[in-house]
């Protein structure tokens, strides 16, 4: 392929470039040593990974997973319990526990996915909210894990010099991984199967797509990413409590997802960055009214860009191309 043709292809599919550019900037932030920026980015990346997880379910299968935070909370508690159990001085980097949080959430997703993914439309959404609330209530009452007061993990963690930087790079790596997973799924056979299910599940099945299998599999993969994000967050905070299952977090996730573009591989990243920057600027400028203004801004953006920012950009590129041809 000639160099020109390659450049043209990148213009056609700029998604990986955009992600690499954003990540290149994110890699440099910790070098600044600005603690405020670092914490800001950690919080943002945590929610972006979580939005990728949600987007895999909602965007790829059309199933509204309103109780998606349950997988995040389970990941946080898994990491929390393990780190706490190791007691005194920690002989290993606690972030090695992160994958375990993902695995636990994934197993939970398979267990609840098999019965609930047969439900359609609103019933699935209601089921996920119920599961979220049930699990949260359970953790409120699990005294062994701190109950309602929550669970401080391990004082030894606080003495770890690179605790914050580790959290930063772990979440950045998870963000990249979540993006590549979503992007890879979209372009492969699995993506075709899932989009067929999203369009017409009955037809997809008579075309040879194992709809239940695909739905449960994507649910499990999504839950894995929510779980690892939760685990990293729990260790970073050195504290987990039932607030890690707060339903309100789901609202943030849905807003970010719709802002960026439901189902797109770039949506959660773009939506997440814009969401956070706007919110932060508003808090600084209008400390008392920021939520009111923020709500209005969200409504305007969603009304102006019904397909999300990515959907709108794609549409305008198509129009531009039609004009040029």
């Amino acid at each position, binding site marked *: 392929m000639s160099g020109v043709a390659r450049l043209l292809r990148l213009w056609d599919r700029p998604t990986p470039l955009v992600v690499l550019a954003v990540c290149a900037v994110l890699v440099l932030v910790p070098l600044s040593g600005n603690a405020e920026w670092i914490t800001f980015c950690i919080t943002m990346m945590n929610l972006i990974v979580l939005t990728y997880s949600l987007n895999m379910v909602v965007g790829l299968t059309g199933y509204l997973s309103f109780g998606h935070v349950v997988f995040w909370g389970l990941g946080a508690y898994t990491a929390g319990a393990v780190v706490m159990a190791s007691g005194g001085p920690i002989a290993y980097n606690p972030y090695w526990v992160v994958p375990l949080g993902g695995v636990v959430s994934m197993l939970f997703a398979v267990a609840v996915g098999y019965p609930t993914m047969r439900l359609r439309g609103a019933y699935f959404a209601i089921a996920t909210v119920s599961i979220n609330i049930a699990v949260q209530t359970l953790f409120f009452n699990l005294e062994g894990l701190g109950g309602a007061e929550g669970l401080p993990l391990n004082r030894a963690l606080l003495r770890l010099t690179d605790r914050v930087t580790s959290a930063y790079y772990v979440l950045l790596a998870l963000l990249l991984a979540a993006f590549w997973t979503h992007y890879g799924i979209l372009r492969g056979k699995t993506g075709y199967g899932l*989009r067929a299910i999203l369009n017409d599940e009955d037809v997809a099945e008579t075309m040879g797509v194992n*709809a239940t299998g695909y739905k449960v599999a994507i649910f499990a993969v999504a839950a894995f990413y929510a779980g690892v994000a939760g685990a990293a967050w729990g260790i970073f905070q050195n504290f987990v409590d039932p607030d890690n299952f707060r339903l309100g977090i789901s609202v943030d996730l849905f807003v970010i997802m719709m802002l960026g573009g439901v189902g797109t591989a770039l949506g959660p990243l773009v939506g997440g960055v814009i969401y956070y920057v706007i919110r932060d600027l508003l808090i600084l400028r209008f400390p008392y009214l920021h939520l009111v203004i923020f709500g209005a801004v969200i409504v305007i953006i969603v009304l102006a860009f019904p397909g999300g920012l990515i959907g709108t950009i794609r549409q305008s590129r198509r129009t531009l191309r039609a004009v040029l041809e």
Partner: protein
Amino acid sequence: MMPARPLLELNGITKRFGGLTAVRDISLAVPPGEIVGLIGPNGAGKTTLFNVITGVHRPDMGEVRIGGQRVDRLARYLIARRGVRRTYQIVRPFADMSVLENVMVGALFGRSEPQEKAEAQARAVTAFMGLQGREDEPAATLNLGEKKRLEIARALAADPDLLLLDEALSGLTPREIDTACETIGRIQTELGKTIIIVEHVMRAIMAISDRIVVLHHGEKIADGTPQAVRRDPRVIEAYLGESA
């Protein structure tokens, strides 16, 4: 010479919905390479029979065999993997996907992997069905005749042994019907597919079918060559009503 083993066998299929018996004790054997026209007045049970074959409905009695193996207890996607594909009376393309992407689903979940091979297969089938140049258009923008062709392309891309066409011709203009008949003939002769086609357009179905099966009130009342069926008094009665 031994007759070829039937590709599809229905043995005593009965399907009820509550008190309504949609099909009753239907038996049918379709040898490979044949085009079978399935006709009958509205509500005769034609689409129900398709739904039973593809696993959308489970028969209350009787069995479905494909290539000699029983399939009527299998999940839909597993029946599809035995080489059965269908189109729909009311078209159901994947509306948000492009023409080529629709056909790609057929190829990828049929017998074409890896993806490069599937794409080549999908492009070839799209052209075979006369949709070349339309590959990147959203399926929702096609007109009815094109959507019907797209559904056939999507099914064909999977390289099925048995193709079930549910009213692939109705709603088309006379010219489109002629083209479609020619295409269906080519699917049989060039691609070697076995086809069952449900149709109301008599002129067309009599011309392209090797054999006609007539359903009436869920029962099979005739099964034979187009010429024989056309003269069958029970068929005439079913279509024109009882003579005074």
